[in-house]
């Protein structure tokens, strides 16, 4: 779903407007598209999640925060949600069913290794 936002921004899919002209939006779109796909398949997940989480934090504070305090009202609810979810993925790892787990070893995520 996160990748869809990138596809909307960069590729114009899903009823998006033509590709944006501002460099911030182009960079954001590519991060959303590529990062979203990497997180979905679980490849280099922590790295991708770190960058995506940062993108969403920037998006929230630059775009949504000036519109009001409550995330429900300033349209930034999903940015907050994605930001925290990816921050958790960054610390948790990709989990058992992921390409990371296949390539590296089985015990990379927090639950598998125990803390």
């Amino acid at each position, binding site marked *: 779903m996160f990748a869809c936002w990138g596809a909307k921004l960069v590729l114009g899919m899903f009823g998006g407007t033509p590709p944006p002209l501002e460099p911030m939006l182009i960079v954001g779109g590519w991060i959303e598209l590529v990062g979203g796909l990497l997180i979905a398949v679980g490849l280099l997940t*922590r790295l991708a999640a770190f960058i995506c989480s940062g993108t969403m934090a920037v998006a929230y504070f630059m775009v949504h925060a000036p519109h009001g305090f409550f995330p429900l009202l300033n349209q930034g609810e999903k940015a907050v949600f994605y930001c925290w979810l990816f921050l958790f993925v960054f610390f*948790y790892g990709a989990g058992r069913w992921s390409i990371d787990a296949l390539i590296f070893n089985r015990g990379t995520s927090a639950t598998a290794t125990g803390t």
Partner: protein
Amino acid sequence: MNALNRFADPIFCVARLIIGLMYACHGGQKLLGFPPGGHGIPQDAMGMIGGCVELGGGILIALGLLARIAAFFAAGEMAVAYFTVHAKMGFFPILNHGESAILYCWFFLFVLFYGAGRWSLDALLFGRSSSATATA
């Protein structure tokens, strides 16, 4: 990178707090008119039940009190909301306005199986080893 694992549980707890509060805001908007800007008090029974689940469940999840039970109901409600309201508006979640419902549904499903985490009332009341990371 595995050294990051030890922070997974605290980050999960903060995320649970923030996301639970945002969810409670949806219920508050429906039932109490706060935060403002909702559609008013829902007229049908489904909307009222949904508002109660969102407000009560969101607060319980945010505090981490009976979090698994609250998350079960909240995730169930979001699944119903997606399929009864949003699914008929199109296939792609980004276009049928059901993206938030899916995010909440899966996050709460994860809470149901993961537990409330280390920083929660559940952990205070029932002992420290109630979440997946702690028991593994």
